[in-house]
């Protein structure tokens, strides 16, 4: 009996250590994999989708939106697609979103990952679908490869746009090279563009010169340092601006000391 006791204790400690070790290994491998596969910054989501982090939390990967889509635009990411497995997305270059008036993909979502409120408006106390409210991404023009910017007349994207003259307008500029022709340059307006990708699908160049990117990628952000002083509405952004002083090694000293500093400037 006395001989067995330390052996039992050893066995117990070993099995505990083994459990902890295996759990730690499993958790590390598992979380590393999850972290890799959920990073898909260029993925385009269905209409009315929550922000990407919340969407990944909330989507149950059932594919009901995919089945509701009459144009086979939406797909579920398969293993090997390098997108978060099982989540719905679309590739406008292949099949764009045709912006159905009744938005069939949104109401079928059982979890609320696709939000009805974000694509409806109230008309005379009645909620109606409003396809123009969807915001899946933003069309971006590569002016280097867009032939309209070369001076060749092409308004394929402008005409394909379901919100013609709102999301894409044509800007007439004088073609200085010829001196007698006009540029008809497509300009995308972020506030109206829905990211449907009909322009990308319609683009005539070998590889589309206009393409949809997620808003997160396509849009910059000015921040509080600059405002349109001529625009009262823009000035209101400063209401929430937080004051603050940047403290560096240099700013700790007085300005005079800074001028007398004999050290290197940087």
């Amino acid at each position, binding site marked *: 009996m006395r001989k067995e006791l330390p052996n039992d204790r050893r066995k117990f400690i070993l099995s505990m250590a083994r*459990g902890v070790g295996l*759990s730690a290994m*499993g*958790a590390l491998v*598992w*979380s590393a*994999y*999850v*972290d890799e*596969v*959920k990073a898909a910054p260029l993925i385009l989501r269905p209409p009315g989708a929550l922000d990407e*982090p*919340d969407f*990944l*939390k*909330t989507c*149950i*990967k*059932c*594919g*009901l939106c*995919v*089945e509701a889509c009459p144009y086979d635009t939406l*797909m*579920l990411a*398969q*293993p*090997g*697609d390098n997108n*978060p*497995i*099982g989540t719905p997305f679309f590739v406008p270059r292949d099949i764009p979103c045709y912006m159905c008036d009744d938005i069939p993909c949104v109401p*079928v*979502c*059982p*979890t*609320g990952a696709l939000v009805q409120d974000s694509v409806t408006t109230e008309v005379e106390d009645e909620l109606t679908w409003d396809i123009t409210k969807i915001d899946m991404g933003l069309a971006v023009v590569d002016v280097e490869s867009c032939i309209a910017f070369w001076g060749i007349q092409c308004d394929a994207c402008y005409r394909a746009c379901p919100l013609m003259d709102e999301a894409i307008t044509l800007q007439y500029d004088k073609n200085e090279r010829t001196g007698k022709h006009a540029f008809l340059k497509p300009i995308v307006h972020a506030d109206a563009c829905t990211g449907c990708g009909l322009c990308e699908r319609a683009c005539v160049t070998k590889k589309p010169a206009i393409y949809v990117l997620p808003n997160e990628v396509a849009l910059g952000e000015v921040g509080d340092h600059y405002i349109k002083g001529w625009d009262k509405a823009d000035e209101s952004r400063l209401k929430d601006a937080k004051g603050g002083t940047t403290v560096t090694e240099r700013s700790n000293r007085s300005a005079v000391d800074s001028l007398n500093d004999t050290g290197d400037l940087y």
Partner: protein
Amino acid sequence: MRKIRYLLMRRFTQIGILVLYFGANAYGWKILQGNLSASSLFETVPLADPFALLQMLFAGAVLATDVIVGALIIALFYAVIGGRAFCSWVCPINMVTDLANWLRRRLGISDVQKRVYMSRNVRYWVMAMALLLSTAMGLAAFEIISPIAMAHRGLVFGMGFGIGALVIIFLFDLFVHENAWCGYVCPLGGFYSILGKFSLFRVKHDAEACTLCMKCKEVCPEKEVLFMIGKNSGSVLMGACTNCARCIEVCDDDALDFSIRSQLEQTIEQTKEKA
């Protein structure tokens, strides 16, 4: 036929459900749409995977009523009636692992070595880890790696490399460890083992009729649940039993059958004993 009557019924439900899902996506049938993660029955009744929902809640998702109702319906069904029946009557992976186990028996692999040591409780650890990682990573962690989801989603919406996950499970079950995935690792199986612990639909053993041939233990994927074989009569009460009914079919002595009442009787007896 009598020897495989339940097996045929199980294959019928497993494949039938997948066919309905497939038809919904491919031909627009409105019977059962979606997949095993969440679906819509006749466009009205929502159904959802309660374990997926649990992970999503751990990830911090704010969920719509539809999916919560759907998960409650499924959870109630298995908790009250089916037990762990999802695993053997619905889950498509069951066909992969059954094939591996059938081959194992045919090739006599289990006679050489049944298994290296692994605890049946691994599945509960994996389940706990799935919930913890869901919180840590901010999304349903098992749903991202689940070969079950890859299988049913893949068969309906396109498989991609998901076939690789099935091959891994098949090879592991065939060559490394008997029933490894379904019997030891799968956290969904662990979840349903706990959820279905007190369900009414049970296999019942009649020790009087038993001739101790042990064919039932030979085919059972969760052998521990049949500990009473030949010793005493009663229901198989452990949550790990998948109600696959293979034991009932292979029994030549009618010593096993499905039953509901005996479970109730036993529970009453147990409570009496405790009192």
